Every structure is written in C-alpha cells, then in structure tokens.
C-alpha cells in the first residue's frame, strides 16, 4: 500500500494528518498496537519538523506485509550538522513555535527511539529527507 501526503509550511493546524491516516491504515491491516504506537510517534515528529522548519514537503509511506517505510522529504534550509540536531534538547525552533510546546529538541530523538532504521540526509539551502523503517515483527 502506498500513501502520500503534502506538508505545508507553518500549517500546525493540520499537523498529524498523515500520522492519523497511517494509524488508521495500520489498524485496518491488524498491525500490532505496539508497532502502531511507534510508527505514530515517529511520523508525527517528522511531520511537525517539516511544518516547523521547512517550506513544505511530502510524506511518502509504503506499507508491506512485514514493515512500513516512511519518507518525509522537505524543501527547506537543511540541517548543517545532523549529529548536533540528533542530540536531545538541541533545537533551532522559532520562539512562537516553542510557545506552542514544540521545539524542545525531542523530535529527532523520539524518531530514533521508535524506528528500526533512521536515515537523515540534508543539503543546506535545499532540504532534508528523513527515511524511517519500522518492522512489524
């Protein structure tokens, strides 16, 4: 099953749309609740990051019989130092985004903790692509 969603810059009102839709799809496929929980946390964080930091992007999801692959690809400022961005507590979120309770520097760590494979690639001034895989067993 292939699913696609568009992420719009600054569109916090719709943050979680992709995660919610993927959650429903996985439940219909009888994927275990523990796995669904992990997918939802990781994908939500990636969605919010694209909304908060980028100028828009795409969420591409492929669900196989044994795993889910999620790609969140944005056009944006990119991440100059990925290792630094992966550190818990590090954030470059704007003050108004922090006021909403985002930007605590927990997004990428939450992704890392909940997926089996995480690959972040980025080019400064071009954009960032986050690839995540969660195995069903």
């Amino acid at each position, binding site marked *: 099953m292939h699913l696609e969603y568009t992420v719009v810059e600054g569109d*916090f*009102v719709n*943050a*979680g749309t992709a*995660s*919610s839709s993927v*959650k429903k799809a996985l439940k219909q496929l009888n994927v275990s609740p523990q796995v669904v*929980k992990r997918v*939802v*946390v990781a994908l*939500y*964080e990636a969605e*919010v990051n694209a909304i908060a930091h980028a100028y828009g992007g795409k969420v591409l999801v492929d669900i196989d019989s044994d795993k889910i692959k999620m790609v969140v690809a944005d056009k944006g400022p990119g991440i100059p130092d990925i290792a630094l961005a992966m550190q818990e507590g590090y954030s470059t979120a704007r003050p108004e985004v922090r006021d*909403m*309770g*985002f930007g*605590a520097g*927990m*997004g990428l*760590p*939450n992704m890392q*903790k*909940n997926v089996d494979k995480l690959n972040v690639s980025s080019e400064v001034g071009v954009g960032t692509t986050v690839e995540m895989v969660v195995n069903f067993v």
Partner: protein
Amino acid sequence: MTVQELVNALKLTVLSGKDGLNREIEGCYVSDLLSDVMGNAEINNVWVTLQTHKNVMAIASLKELACVILVKGQSASEETLAQSNEEGIPFLSTTMQTFETAGKIYDLLK
C-alpha cells in the same frame, strides 16, 4: 476510574467530548512539551496541560488518551473543541493550577 468520576471528584468543567466521559482512566501525564507527551504518555492517560491549541487534540487522539485537563481556568478554541466532540476525547477545565491538579489526581489514582 472513569473520566466522569474524575470530573465529579475534582469538580471539573466539561468543555467538550461528552461521548468520552465513560472512558476508563489508566494513569496521568503532566507536561506542556508536546514531544514529551508524544514520546512518553500512555494510552488512557489523563493529560494535564496549559497548552490549548489544536495540536493538543491531535496528540490526544494519536496517543488515545482518556481526556485532557486544561489548568488555570483555560478553554480551547472552537475548532479544538469541535474535534474533541468528533473524537470523543473530553476536554476538561479546572481553575486549579497544575501542581494542585496533579496532586489530587495522584491521590485518586495511587
């Protein structure tokens, strides 16, 4: 304990999501950082927060929380409350601040 029983015990105001008042409560999580709640809250938790925007509802729904308690007499936007009604996850309000609210819930659930 159900959400309705919590409402009665703490004299909470039900802002929305009445269909979910029979939800069973299992624990509580207190945080205003959304990623913290996303990463650490558990299904059927009560969430105590001072955040009131629509993303609170999105997280409550994704995490299948029992209800959300807004502290210090706050309410949420019409849009948020409408979504709460749709999903049957109650938004409750208290005039208490977070410390008192969490303390009382701890006493009830311990």
